């Protein structure tokens, strides 16, 4: 197997927390492993609180890592201190597009300033003429008309702001673009344009995407492969088309059946109760329980006694369920 662009191994993030019952550890990301190949688009899905955002913050090295490795371009980024990350050679190779296009733009910067900032800080572009040429080029690629570049965020529409956010992230031509719900704040009418823009941009610049979203319809259309997270762990992964056609983990099934218009009866897959707490109290036994136990319609005694590990279930597919082979037809 060729070297992946990004290879994450047993990555973990634990936050110390205080509860009325005493001290404990919140396992936000718990032993996550996956790879992203060059030029691949990987979707990361899961409900709020499942650890998606923490994972993203670990990958972009804005949070210290508790355990594990992040292998990227021959280096282990997990060893890099977040404060030293800005000087690291990989810093310019991993860029991020944030969820809210409005909140993530500096209100006192014009679109031009916003897009030029990374070039000045990380791109080593000193010459004003070159700076202008680079900004103009990415503006063209992201469909921003030149006259918009002198505007401030409040003078731009939602779709235009989303383009500025994407242009800022893409202007350095990073190898990996991390997109955190880039279309969540947009209307359907604008969402399509932005998704098609991202697909074009990827073709043009040959980047890899990690696309975080809870809109499964969008993930299905944009992504080559999908990772499903639940309670800090990856519970299923595989080619997007296969996972959507025949999910092998009960949680993935519930997710897919819940998509409006999926034609599935969501009622058959409704999840009772709430997710387990990700907090492990100090001194308590490391709970050997499947994170999905208690909500899973197929749960049995084994599930309460043993954590299922992510294992290959078909070519290119993995699932973390004791009973994945005996699940009823989807």
């Amino acid at each position: 197997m060729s070297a992946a662009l990004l290879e994450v191994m047993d990555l973990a993030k634990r936050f110390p927390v205080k509860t009325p019952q005493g001290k404990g550890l919140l396992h936000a990301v718990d032993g996550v492993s996956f790879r992203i190949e060059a030029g691949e688009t990987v979707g990361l899905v899961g409900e709020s609180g499942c650890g998606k955002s923490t994972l993203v913050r670990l990958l972009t090295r804005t949070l210290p890592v508790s355990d594990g490795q992040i292998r990227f371009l021959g280096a282990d980024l997990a060893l890099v201190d977040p404060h030293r990350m800005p000087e690291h050679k990989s810093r310019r190779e991993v860029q991020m597009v944030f969820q809210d296009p409005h909140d993530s733009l500096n209100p006192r910067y014009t679109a031009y300033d916003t897009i030029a900032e990374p070039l000045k800080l990380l791109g080593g572009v000193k010459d004003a003429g070159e700076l202008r040429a680079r900004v103009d080029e990415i503006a063209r690629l992201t469909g921003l008309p030149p006259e918009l570049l002198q505007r401030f965020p409040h003078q731009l529409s939602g779709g235009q702001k989303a383009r500025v956010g994407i242009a800022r992230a893409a202007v350095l031509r990073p190898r990996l673009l991390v997109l955190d719900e880039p279309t969540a704040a947009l209307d359907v009418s604008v969402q399509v344009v932005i998704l098609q823009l991202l697909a074009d941009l990827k073709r043009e610049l040959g980047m890899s995407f990690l696309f975080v979203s809870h809109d499964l319809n969008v993930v299905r259309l944009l992504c080559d492969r999908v990772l499903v997270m639940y309670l800090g762990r990856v519970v299923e992964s595989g080619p997007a088309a296969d996972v959507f056609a025949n999910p092998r983990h009960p949680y993935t099934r519930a997710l897919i059946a819940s998509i409006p218009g999926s034609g599935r009866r969501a009622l058959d897959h409704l999840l009772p109760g709430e997710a387990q707490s990700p907090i492990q109290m100090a001194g308590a036994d490391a709970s050997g329980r499947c994170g999905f136990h208690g909500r899973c319609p197929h749960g049995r005694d084994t599930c309460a006694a043993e954590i299922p590990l992510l294992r290959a279930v078909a070519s290119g597919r993995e699932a973390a369920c004791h009973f994945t082979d005996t699940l009823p037809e989807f």
Partner: protein
Amino acid sequence: MLPLLEVKNLSLQFRTRGGTVHALQDVSLSIAKGETVGLVGESGSGKSVLSYALLGLSDAAARVTQGSAHFDGLDLLAASEADLQDIRGREVSMIFQNPKVALNPIRKVGHQLEDVLLRHTTTPRAEVKARAVHCLAEMKIPDPERRYHAYPFELSGGLCQRVMIALALACGPKLLVADEPTTGLDVTTQAAIMALIREKGRPAVGTQAMATLLITHDLGLARDQCDRIVVMHAGHVVESAPTEQLFREPRHPYTRQLIGATPVGRASLADLTAVRGNLPDLRRADLPACRFSERCGQASAMCAGALPVIDDGRHLVRCHRPAQEVAA
């Protein structure tokens, strides 16, 4: 049979410093008892303005310039504030878009439920707590006894939304206005919440069916949940039809473009087509009669004339050049 809610030719403006915003123009809408109607359109198309106007919750700058709105025999636009207060929460209730903002942050959710029950029902004070806990339990909120004592900030978004729905449904309203009730929630939570609302729409024997006005910009959700869909664009109702018919034979170009932009059931990104352009500025003095004409692409000289109403009793479309109906 008389519809439960009937809005006729309603126009509403906001007077602002930047000019008069023509937020609703000649809007007609009716909802039968027990019916679920979806109200769809882009942000800014007037969906929420319409629902606020119906409940008498409009901003002080709003002015109704024409039209009428009747709910179960009551003239909503002429009703006194006292009458409206009697109706709101009991006969018509609303699920607001953002539960974290709509709930009172400094009052326990159980007490907020009790407020509604004491104001609108004959529940004796001694029983009201049990009743409130029952309402929470009905929304499948785990551990309702404990959650009764929770403040909104102690609950997750999904739980807050369930509390909102418990409040809205506590008095068994005849009409529920749900304004983006699941925006920002996970799909699994969304499915659970919609199932709860639907359950109330198909009630047990002896209780009355609840009608729902579901405001959403998610066409997939509207298709799953609604009997009929009303499409709004820039303050106009542009099309209204039974759900299946609307998706099978959309006649207004805006509806067609919206459906074309919805990713549900598409095989690839290339199958999606974007909606052209942006909503027109509703403060403009020279708004065209058809507010979609500048985005339409099929507009011709005839589109400058007054907006027609083409209505066969089931399928309504307001367009000079609608797509032809498939011959029956």
